[in-house]
């Protein structure tokens, strides 16, 4: 038997296959044919202090080996989430990490304060720092080392649950931001969020996305995600959760070799939301074939 268990902070996950924020709803609203209990964990879509309608359409467009989205963080808001979604997690059969987003430091903090005031089965928070900071002229939290540090420090003081900082690839030095998160108490970092992208209709001369720019995801992202994970791996000791363009178990292996201790599947869920559960058996087979007992022993083993 191969050991697929992995550890992040003080939490053990039964396997390293998670679903990525914004691609798997709240975890309790996925199609019936998906057996979520097989997954190592689910990262919810970003939840904000107030409900958000999201952006006007068109919100998505297909691109070569991927897609661009600008959903605009459509979500029910934290109060509704606490009331209507959180109770269902006690029987969901997998671990839930709540992804949170805000437009000020206070908003992020307020969400965590609210969540910590109730008892819940959520094991941790993933902090989406690819959000415009309204107090800093719309600059994203995640592009600024000191802002990332400040945010992480504040949130760390509010919770003992897992704190995972989700990094943006749209920065000059992703490893520096990861280091800031680690120094301020993050239990792990996840990388990467989507890459800024654009698609234009040559007939109408309009952007295919209402907000002009959107986030590129899917297999087109995999080389960028792998490089980011490898760079971060050389800079931090905390676990890295690899994200970007994973569609099969060999992609997972690549992320492990680059330095990831777990992975998240995003866009692939749109083709088939049960992809993750199938990957678990494939990972076991791979490990058996290459004679390793524990998948964790692959972390960072790329031969450079």
């Amino acid at each position: 038997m191969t050991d697929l268990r992995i550890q992040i902070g003080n939490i053990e996950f039964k396997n390293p296959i998670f679903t990525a924020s914004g691609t798997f709803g709240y975890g309790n609203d996925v199609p019936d044919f998906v057996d979520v209990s097989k997954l190592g964990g689910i990262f919810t879509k970003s939840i904000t202090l107030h409900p958000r309608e999201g952006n006007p359409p068109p919100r998505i467009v297909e691109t070569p080996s991927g897609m661009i989205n600008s959903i605009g963080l459509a979500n029910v808001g934290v109060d509704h989430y606490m009331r209507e979604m959180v109770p269902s997690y006690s029987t969901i059969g997998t671990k839930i990490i709540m992804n949170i987003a805000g437009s000020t430091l206070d908003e992020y903090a307020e969400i965590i304060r609210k969540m910590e005031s109730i008892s819940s089965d959520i094991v941790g928070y993933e902090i989406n720092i690819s959000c415009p900071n309204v107090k800093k002229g719309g600059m994203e939290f995640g592009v600024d080392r000191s802002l990332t540090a400040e945010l992480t420090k504040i949130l760390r003081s509010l919770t003992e649950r897992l704190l995972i900082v989700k990094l943006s690839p749209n920065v000059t030095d992703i490893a520096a931001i990861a280091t800031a998160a680690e120094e301020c108490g993050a239990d792990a970092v996840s990388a990467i969020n989507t890459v800024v992208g654009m698609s234009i209709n040559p007939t109408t001369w309009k952007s295919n996305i209402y907000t002009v720019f959107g986030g590129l995801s899917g297999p087109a992202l995999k080389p960028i995600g792998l490089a980011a994970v490898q760079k971060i791996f050389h800079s931090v000791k905390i676990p890295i959760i690899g994200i970007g363009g994973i569609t099969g178990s060999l992609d997972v292996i690549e992320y492990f070799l680059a330095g990831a201790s777990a992975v998240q599947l995003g866009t692939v869920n749109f083709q088939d939301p049960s992809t993750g559960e199938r990957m678990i058996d494939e990972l076991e087979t791979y490990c058996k074939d290459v004679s390793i007992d524990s998948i964790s022993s692959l972390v960072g083993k790329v031969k450079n």
Partner: protein
Amino acid sequence: MLIEQCKIIRNEEIAGGIWEMEFSAPGIVSYYTGPGQFLEILLDNKWSFTVRRPMSIANVEEKRITIIYKIFGRGTTLLTESKVGGILDILGPLGNVFSGWQGNYVPILVGGGVGLAPILNLFRECQKHQIHSKLIIGAKTGREHFMDHDPSNGIFLTTDDGTLGNPGTVMPSLKKVCADIDNPMVFACGPLPMLKGMQDFVIQNKIPAQLSVESYMGCGTGLCQGCAIKRRNVKEKAHSYHERYSLVCMDGPVYSASEVSFD
């Protein structure tokens, strides 16, 4: 809803640029609830086609499903190359159904362009229930039609270029048909300009109507939140989730005409 590997039984051009495909889908059929529902087809070489292509169910016969599709772009072109005996990866059935057609109304069914499929499905369903409906089908030109213009049996074809049936869009024919009936109810699916014209007409004339709408779709399961469409008459300050936008894959594709906005 499930994902099924469906064996292709038939795939042929039935009119200029319009194709019909039949495949075996026992699993999907077992969940099927009626006309209006659709499928999401994953194309071969799947990462050149990240998103599944939505296609309405045009007919269900025992364990087989028929779709009618129009060559639009890369994906639908590739679909024409699918061979009989080959396998398609299909997610479905998805979405809601047309309702109210079994009530005390005369159903007026209007289909234009690619919107034909769910309307033909409803037409057949009405026939099965011995409900006399009227069918109006619009196309750009005569060669896109594959049925006969047959006004005495309530089937009206229209062409933008006047090469077959009534000249012009479906609107003049619709107005005429509605004028002759006491209690019409309109069921329509088609391109955006058609639906918009239809919406204005039925609201002005207080005719109950259901419109099946299209939007660019990413997953069909509500997970991506991509297929948003604006709701009508939303309070200016509407702020909470799901008041301003609706997801076509989950809440639709069939809406009451007063529910959605095409602006």
